[in-house]
């Protein structure tokens, strides 16, 4: 299995380390030519503004969008979630715009409001998942095609799935818990993602 990790900026090394630990061939992706023959793609945490600008400058936005629309499984964490959203409430930047969700950037506030907390994520089992939220975005609205995977105690949506797209506000790659990545890999392996219609 070959999983690409977008390596333009952010904590791509942590994702690659997590994948390697799970025995997966992880590749750093910086140019369109490196997108060939991937079984999945991860967009890491980082600065979404920086990432979207460089994706545009190096012609990565359209090919990634096309591959995901053809069914390539994709996981976005934090900044990756922002890039996957069709609508971003407080941003002027273009993004991949694939998932039918509305996202608010830095929804909890600045760094002083970054936090850690245990999260209930039923699809990962009964044991809570440790969520690390850093200047994190939130999912404000979802359309009916989107499956909500995790909410904070106040109801705020912090993880969701739609067809072959998986996204979360927090950073599974900053923990020692590989369940979120394993969930993504299992969906990829089993071909459990439905192909998108358009």
């Amino acid at each position, binding site marked *: 299995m070959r999983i690409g990790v977008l390596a333009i900026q952010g904590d791509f090394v942590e994702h690659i380390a997590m994948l390697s630990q799970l025995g997966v061939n992880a590749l750093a992706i910086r140019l369109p030519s490196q997108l060939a023959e991937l079984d999945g793609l991860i967009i890491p945490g980082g600065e979404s503004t920086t990432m979207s600008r460089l994706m545009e400058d190096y012609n990565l936005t359209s090919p990634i969008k096309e591959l995901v629309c053809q069914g390539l499984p994709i996981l976005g964490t934090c900044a990756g979630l922002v890039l996957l959203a069709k609508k971003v409430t407080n941003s002027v930047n273009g993004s991949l715009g694939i998932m039918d969700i509305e996202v608010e950037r830095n929804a909890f506030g600045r760094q002083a409001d970054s936090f*850690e907390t245990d999260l209930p994520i039923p699809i990962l089992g009964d044991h809570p998942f440790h969520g690390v939220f850093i200047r994190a975005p939130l999912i404000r609205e979802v359309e009916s095609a989107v499956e909500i995977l995790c909410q904070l105690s106040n109801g705020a949506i912090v993880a969701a799935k739609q067809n072959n797209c998986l996204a979360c506000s927090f950073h599974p790659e900053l923990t020692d818990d590989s369940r979120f990545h394993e969930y993504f890999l299992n969906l990829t392996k089993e071909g459990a993602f439905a192909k998108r219609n358009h």
Partner: protein
Amino acid sequence: MEKGSWKVKTGLAQMLKGGVIMDVVTAEQAKIAEDAGACAVMALERVPADIRATGGVARMADPSIISSMMEAVSIPVMAKCRIGHFVEAQVLEALGVDFIDESEVLTPADESHHVWKHDFKVPFVCGCRDLGEALRRIAEGAAMIRTKGEAGTGNIVEAVRHMRAVQDGIRRLQSLPAEELAAEAKALGAPLELVLEVHNTGKLPVVNFAAGGIATPADAALMMQLGAEGVFVGSGIFKSSDPPVRAQTIVKATTHYQDPSIIAEVSKGLGEPMRGLDIRAIPDEELLATRGW
């Protein structure tokens, strides 16, 4: 729910990796930096080259300037406090900045003691010239390290020296047998606990960027190839002839630091870089890197 933990402090530094943090003195410059792809901006009243030129005591920036930058951009905003000036740090934390740089670029407030950074919820970045200095700052609570270089010179030589010193220090610790680590910790002036961690992992416990003298895309890529996880660019951008273009190209060279053909492409026709200084022409008392210990 736990705020201001070590995990979220060091985690923000991890999110900045592979990026360029740019010195800015106005909200307008902050916007230019953000548009060029900076992963954060550093709020200052004067860039290091001007601090060097005008002399006098350099202090924390006016809070109104810092606040205007925080309003102007959505990327993280960092600001500098003087070494040991924990009240400037308290003020910056109260303003809500995302990161504090306890910086040798400003005039030190305390020649013996740095800020005890564990007392703060906001993360700190500190400069270093070698592994011992890096580990002392981490022990005090720095969630991110940058090599000092010599700010405001546009000369990469000190940045290279300091990055090589840190990397050499790490390689040396890895190669030592366990029974020699305590003596090495003593020689380094660093806590044994952190020395053991570096011996075992082969890397610093926090993210390490390069700073001080980066003026061109090739300079940025050089520091990345030497092991920096990202770069700070101070005077190099807004003291050049075309700041937006220079900023964009340094960002590209930082991402594609292993790809000489891209670095060549972005280096074409950039206009004048900042005018550089020969380190040997600077009197010892005007060197910034020797501030702090």
